[in-house]
């Protein structure tokens, strides 16, 4: 190997901007993010278009056609009231996703803020907030749900509020744990030193460094919340009929799992696929948000 004959001089670095931002490039390169977002987009589109794309009226009861197995006119069969499972699945995407995403939005916002505040100020603020968390945590979810329902009456909004109440403490504790270590990093001190106000330290320094695990945590929550909604409607305080929800379909289908598995199974599969979508997207986003990400 001779030093002189190297033909290609330094590989020219491509121009810094080629229309796409760093984020977009990383996103497009992350397999997890791509598969995840395709699935999520699909589910979201189905949910949005639900009223127009259901093959049957999802609330149409036909008592003489109950528990039809999949096939024929009813692609995924019918349920205990002869309603078309596929149509209900499509409609259910709407409610289930609305509930899950609203709860996540609320709890992620509040939980993260409170957790960061607790870890940042520590001392009394931390103590008061975290003891509050202890108490809420200790209440069985159902009790909280029932109390909320008693105050507000059953319905989708109640479900969202109740689940949000139950969910934020976990988020808060997690955000707190992450920030506790992070706040000791020198770059945080550097932020203080250049006069960054506390809220912006949290926003610019702490949040971006905990956002990845928080996203992953949120993506885990989608399925759990959908299932929690089912438990609530079991007590009559959930999303009200005739709106189908996936959780509700699984719950209704479970007792008949051995005789007529198609109801519980199809809803479970829909939920599973959605969760896979959100989780891959969550992990993908994590990778994308990490400037050192490994590409592929």
């Amino acid at each position, binding site marked *: 190997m001779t030093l002189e004959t190297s033909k290609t001089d330094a590989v020219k670095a491509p121009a810094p901007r080629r229309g796409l931002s760093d984020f977009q490039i990383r996103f497009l390169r*992350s*397999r*997890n993010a791509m*598969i995840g977002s395709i699935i999520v987009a699909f589910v979201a589109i189905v949910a949005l278009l639900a009223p127009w794309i259901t093959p049957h009226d999802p609330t149409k009861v036909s008592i003489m056609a109950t528990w039809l197995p999949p096939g024929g006119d009813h692609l995924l069969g019918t349920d205990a009231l002869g309603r078309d499972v596929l149509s209900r699945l499509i409609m259910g995407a709407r409610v289930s996703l609305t509930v899950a995403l609203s709860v996540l939005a609320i709890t992620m916002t509040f939980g993260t803020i409170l957790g960061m505040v607790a870890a940042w100020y*520590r*001392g009394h603020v*931390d*103590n008061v907030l*975290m*003891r509050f*968390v*202890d*108490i809420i*945590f*200790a*209440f*069985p*979810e*159902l*009790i909280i749900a*029932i*109390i909320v329902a*008693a*105050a507000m009456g059953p319905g989708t909004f109640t479900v969202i509020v109740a689940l949000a109440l139950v969910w934020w403490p*976990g988020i808060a*504790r*997690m955000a*707190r*744990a*992450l920030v*506790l*270590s992070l706040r*000791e990093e020198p770059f945080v001190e550097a932020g203080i030193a250049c006069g960054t106000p506390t809220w912006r330290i949290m926003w610019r320094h702490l949040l971006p460094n905990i956002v*990845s*695990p928080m996203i*992953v*945590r949120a993506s*885990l929550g989608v*399925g*759990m919340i959908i*299932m929690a909604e089912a438990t609530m409607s079991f007590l009559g305080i959930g999303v009200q009929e005739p709106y189908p929800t996936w959780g509700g379909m699984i719950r209704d289908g*479970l007792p008949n*799992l*051995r005789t007529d598995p198609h109801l*519980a199974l199809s809803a*479970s599969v829909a*939920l*599973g696929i959605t*969760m*896979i979508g959100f*989780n*891959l997207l969550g*992990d993908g986003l*994590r*990778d994308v948000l*990490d400037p*050192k990400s*490994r*590409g*592929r």
Partner: protein
Amino acid sequence: MLHYATRRLLGLTLVWAVALIVTFFAVRAVPGDPIMVMLSDHAGDAALEARLRADYGLDRPLPVQFLAYIGDVLNGTFGLSYRYVGSTVIDVIRDGMTITPLLALSALFIAVPLGLFFGVFAAVRAGSWADTGIILLLVTFISIPSFALAALLVWMLSLKLALLPVAGWGSPAQLVLPVTVLVVGPMAVIARLTRTYMLEVLDRDFVRTARAKGVRENRVIWRHALGNTMVPIVTSIGLIFGGLLSGAFVVETVFNIPGLGRIAIDSVLARDYPVTMSIVLLFTVFYSLINLCVDLIYAWLDPRIRFDEAAA
């Protein structure tokens, strides 16, 4: 540290007191009341209702009831159950108090190492097909409702293969299925979070230093990288342990285990105030102690975290 711990413990008694008050009023805010449940279809028989209300002391003003309850808590019986006529609360929950934590702990002891293993494994191979595969598997685990998983396991292992008893409590064999069901979800959650936390540290300089020392790759990953993610992981484990305690309900129902979760739900449904309150109180104590331990472990896991300094 000791100072901090004692101060926190003192703080906790306050929390418990608050929890006591909150639960007392919260359970009463729930629609329906124990007498209604006892009357069931006969709700509406005013005479019977009045008599039972008097028998159970529920006709007294709330503050009086509250004081009576405090007395019951202090004398250690936690009062008389409404649902289990003539039994003290402590009798009702005594077995459950050990069963549920035992279940939760056994599950935790299995879920944590497995979860860490899968999480670390995936993180080390981040971006590869193996990683995507593990994520898919874990997410599948998370999305299987525990009812369904239990049904599946029973069908396979108990009915078809006759390896394990269907349900019940007492023998080690009867522990296998419920613990398995309990393990799956938390294991997957721990794994997913571990992967994330690990990826946050795997590229840090000190990991490179460890490699430069010629430290074995396993040790680089498990000791250096994982060691630096333990704070959030331990937090998650604390949260999951809490979730296991209350989440044991499903498993206790399916596998017929007389645990606290089932008693809790039964008592809520029966509006058995004394039992509900006591269980909530018990959970409060559990949770706050778990969280206290977690907080205390923080300083040990990450020496940069110091609570006593901040309090000073």
